[in-house]
């Protein structure tokens, strides 16, 4: 006998997710398709004209700022992601030790990640101030007579942002590493100790391999996140000096909401989407070579 529609579990499943599904289609898939269509148009919010692939052609062939912003973002990612991963892992290892006041330390290191992005940007504006910032005052106190002007120097502005990215090492990434560390069975370490392994050997041969799923997860999200860096640059430097901190999304935002080139900005958004898709795809394809899942058969 045929099962009635309402008797099928899938019916109830879809019914219950309908509100989310409608929202997803309306507010995510819909705008995405809309922006894909717009990327082939010239649209200034008043006039719409189909231009084919002209926006993409201009981006790649004529727009020096597109390449500049891509370069800035890639450079930032290249340094900020590994530094952030290493920093978070280092903190997680420290906070996984059995020491007195551990809960307090964990709280203290987590707090910075709770500070809103705007407040963080303003705070670091002061830290990097060339004349009276705490960083340059410290550098002067150790004998550096002329420390960098940081955010006002085209050569130092991007490194300043990379340094600033370390502010977030105690956040969600560290929590994931910490959870991973706590999930490693003590018996592994005990067995290694019996075999005469030291701390470094245990870390390299047990801790790191067991953490590879977390490293992989944090790396994928880290690269996606760092390619979308925006708030700090928007507030602290507005992309300057001389476009030294013009990140990709900041440039996209300007094209869309300051110069009202919605079609061009949509093309930029899709290029970014494809870049991230490619990066993520590469990472997933390579993951099999170095990510170890417990219980996985090879």
């Amino acid at each position, binding site marked *: 006998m045929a099962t009635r529609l309402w008797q099928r579990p899938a019916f109830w499943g879809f019914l219950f997710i309908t509100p989310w599904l409608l929202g997803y289609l309306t507010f995510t898939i819909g705008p995405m398709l809309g922006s894909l269509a717009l990327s082939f148009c010239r649209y200034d919010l008043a006039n719409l004209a189909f231009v084919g692939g002209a926006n993409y052609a201009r981006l790649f062939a004529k727009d020096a700022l597109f390449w500049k912003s891509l370069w800035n973002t890639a450079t930032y990612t290249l340094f900020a992601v590994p530094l952030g991963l290493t920093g978070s892992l280092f903190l997680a290892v420290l906070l996984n030790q059995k020491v007195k006041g551990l809960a307090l330390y964990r709280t203290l290191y987590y707090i910075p990640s709770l500070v809103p992005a705007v407040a963080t940007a303003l705070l670091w504006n002061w830290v990097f*101030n060339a004349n009276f910032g705490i960083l340059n005052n410290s550098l002067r106190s150790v004998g550096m007579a002329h420390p960098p002007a940081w955010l006002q120097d085209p050569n130092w502005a991007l490194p300043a942002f990379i340094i600033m990215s370390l502010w977030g090492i105690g956040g969600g990434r560290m929590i994931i590493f910490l959870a991973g560390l706590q999930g490693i069975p003590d018996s592994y370490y005990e067995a290694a100790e019996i075999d005469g392994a030291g701390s470094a050997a245990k870390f390299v041969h047990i801790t790191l391999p067991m953490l590879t799923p977390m490293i992989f997860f944090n790396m994928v999200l880290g690269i996606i996140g760092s390619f979308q860096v925006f708030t700090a640059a928007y507030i602290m430097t507005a992309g300057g000096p001389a476009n030294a901190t013009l990140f990709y999304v900041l440039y996209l935002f300007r094209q869309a909401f300051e110069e009202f080139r919605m079609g061009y900005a949509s093309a930029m958004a899709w290029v970014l989407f494809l870049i991230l898709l490619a990066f993520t795809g590469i990472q997933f394809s390579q993951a099999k070579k170095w990510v170890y899942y417990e219980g996985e058969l090879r």
Partner: protein
Amino acid sequence: MKWLIAALFVAALGMLIWRSLPTPEEEGRTTIRYMAWGNPEQLGAEMELVKEFERRNPAIHVRLTLVPGSAYTQKLQVMLASGTAPDVFRCDRYQFPAYAHRGYFMPLGKFIAEDKDFRFEDYFDLAIREGMYNGEFYGMNVLFGGRVIYYSKTAFEREGLTDPYVLYKRGEWTLDQFLEAAKRLTKYDERGMPAQFGVLFHGLEAWTFIWGFGGDILTPDASRCIVNRPEAIRALRYMQDLQHKWHVTPTAAESALNAYTFESGRIAMLFNWAGQAPIYRTIRDFQWDIVPVPACPAGRISMIKGNQLLMYRHTKHPRESWEFMKFYVSRDGERILCTKLRRGISTRKDVALSPEYLQSAQPPFQNDVWVDQFKFGRELPINDRWAHWQREWNKWFELLMLNRVTAEEMAAGAEAAINEILAEEPF
């Protein structure tokens, strides 16, 4: 508990009564929406203006929407694009041509032609010109102002320097005098740190100096960049020297986080718009006033820019909107904004030249300086491409002021890059 229930009941009843009150429309009044931005003083004046208009026009209700300046442009743009724009709104001159190009505004010609109370002759030509786009008049000029120098009279007196206003009146306020004053007003503390800089200027001052040296950034029709010429290069070099040769103005690093502001007394002369005057009126530690920009080798030319008061093209209440716009720039309207608030230069000749406007009980006292802007002011050549090439200009100007390029390199680089942008079809 019962008090809580009683309180909730009273609140609900209050809401019910409030909701049942007749709206302006139900009272037979036409409601128009007006949107603006500004500091608290400005918004206070706007409210006063709206109140006075409603008193005189009981059949019209103006719903004033105040938007923070930082979000105003985007909000207006989205409202215009989505067809929900207010009937009347203010728009910064920087955006006006780009929006006019997209056909968002109602031309005002037919209203003016039918209105005997409104006459172009009552206004300064320069102010009217800014409201034109492609030969059509769209925007009444409001919050009009020119670039002047705010200066600390106290600092000049302390240094034994002749007051620049006195020099100006004598015809001696020249670039040499300006530089001499800037040098003497730059002071260092015992640690060798700058305690006070002689002058602070914004990148916009490139126009003032380049015009003053006889050059220009764009051709008159704003179709080409012409900055790579000896006059403009001399002006750029002069600005660079102010910072890196004479050290009379802070570098970007020194002035970051508002380390040197006019209000703090750490800047003796500051180039700025008329709109800053209400803010500086809170200064209590020193006396200040205004003076025109100095006369440069090719003359004295200052930038002029206002905001436009505009009517939405698809307004349902064009007549009422026009009445409000007309009142805004009427003698009484401008008295509120310009004479009471002293926020900008009145665009009406009768107000700007009236003793009531020229004689002030609060600084600035030298109000003829505002009016003189009409003699030597020049409007910025802002058109619908302005935002497109500005970034390239700013980049090169930043490099110049960072001393990373020479004036010659900046002029050549900026001209080539801007001309490439201007030659390209909008995309």
